[in-house]
């Protein structure tokens, strides 16, 4: 797959960096955006690594990488807008929250988890933080069974143990979303 419309090659004079996803797809990204990914930044911080080197991101799918790049690009733009002006900062903050909401809104549980893994591997602190917050919001009213499926966890309680643990805080099981 060639570069798609979401990832146009910039024709301004800035430096770009090439990132390679797990399926071999190459994304050419502005340097400022690429440096949002701390993993990429560390890659180039090593002596002798030229900026022409393609950065292999073996643990990130091209779908996830495309979304990460899109998010970071807009995050960099928004950060450039804020400054000393409180009004401008407030507006930038609201736009940023809108950007975050947009990113997670359409995502399935699997999609969000994939993005979390990408943000974790690429070491993008802000992105990981809001993705975790979004997952928290998704699961906070869910049942124990739903959470087990989401986190791929085995129920290792005996039936008696589980019943006892539940009964200790029976009230916390009221008002839970149906699965």
């Amino acid at each position, binding site marked *: 797959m060639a570069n798609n419309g979401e990832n146009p090659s910039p024709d301004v004079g800035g430096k770009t960096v090439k990132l390679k996803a797990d399926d071999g797809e190459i994304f050419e990204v502005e340097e400022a955006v690429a440096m949002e990914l701390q993993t990429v930044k560390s890659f180039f911080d090593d002596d002798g690594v030229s900026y022409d080197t393609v950065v292999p991101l073996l643990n990130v799918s091209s779908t996830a990488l495309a979304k990460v790049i899109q998010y970071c690009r807009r995050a960099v733009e928004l950060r450039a807008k804020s400054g000393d002006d409180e009004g401008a900062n407030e507006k930038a903050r609201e736009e940023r929250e809108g950007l975050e909401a947009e990113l997670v809104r359409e995502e399935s549980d699997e999609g969000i*988890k994939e993005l979390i*893994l990408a943000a*974790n591997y690429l070491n993008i602190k802000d992105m*990981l933080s809001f993705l975790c917050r979004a997952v928290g919001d998704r699961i906070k009213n869910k049942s*124990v069974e739903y*959470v087990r499926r989401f986190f791929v966890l085995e*129920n290792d309680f005996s039936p008696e143990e589980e019943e006892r*643990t539940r009964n200790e*805080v029976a009230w916390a099981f009221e008002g839970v979303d149906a699965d």
Partner: protein
Amino acid sequence: MSTYLPKDVVLIILSRLPPKSLLRFRSVSKSWLSLIGNPNYVSKNLLNHSILTAATAHQLLLVKLTAPSIPQRQICSFLSYQTLAFASQTPQNLPIRSPRGLSIVGSCNGLLCLFDYFSGGDIFVWNPATSELKALPCASNVDTVCFGFDHKRNECVVMRTRYAPERDPPVFITNRGDLRLNRVAEVYRLRSGDSWRKLIVDGDVPDCNGPNSRSRWAYANGVCYWWTLRGVEDEKIVAFDVSEEVFRTTPLPDASVLGRRSDVRALMVLNEWVAMVVVRNKSKWEGKLFDIWVLLEFGVKESWTRLLRIEAFPGLEWPLGFWKNGELFMENGEGELVLYDPSTQTVRNVDQVDHGVKESLQVLAYTPTTVSFEGGL
């Protein structure tokens, strides 16, 4: 095939969850049970972190006390909320008739609401940063005052309840029950009104009546809380939602859980939850016993959770409010402000504040504003 998230990421997700969710998710697996832990205030586990960590950072701590001078003066000191470093002190003598009667009902948006309950009706709104002081239209027989912020209409609201014998038909007072029939609740909106407006209340207007005269009301997130006693066994906490203008009640834990009815109880808030500290007198050398309870879900009696017991500190007299990370402001036997740290079980003096007349100390979170409220706030 479902994606598996590594443990450090799971911890970040869980650290954002509210206590009710965490308590339920203890049943997910044995490792989550141990990770989430039990509510006991002192252990560093996810559950205690979610209960004790504040969502908002306050700027200042307001400490009010009555100075033991002649004539007695009400002094307000402002400390940095984060460090407790001294910031300022008000020079102004508050307009009061009886020094011991003045209480700060609440702090919202840089404004303080003062209630002189000995006078039975004087209510003031005060901005210490601009020195503006406004006396609200007076009435007599006011028993409860609360002060909160209406997020929907973006204004501060004062609510009061009072005995209003002008309500018809007139009732000949024979006992305390009759007093309840003639009570009204009224609101005064700082931005959109010049007068008190009577509320239409479903049923009786709840009164403010509890096991002691101190620490009877509390406020968090647009809701005011206070004690009420409907019958001998029917003690509840009332919540008044300032935006919706409705009253709700929540029961206390069963007597078997809570302990003797003769214990006194201080009402306060811990972050967004109603909390109470049960105070039991023991012997003079043992000091008092303090049990800290938090109500994790309003209206649900079983969600009362005991967090901590403080005992064997003979100097401690009364709980005043929570600081950060679960530390508790208290008053000692000399009328001094002290701080109890549950993780080390130690008490230290807050030196930046002088001692006051006993039982006159109050602490409140406060963030100043220089916006004039005559322009509407």
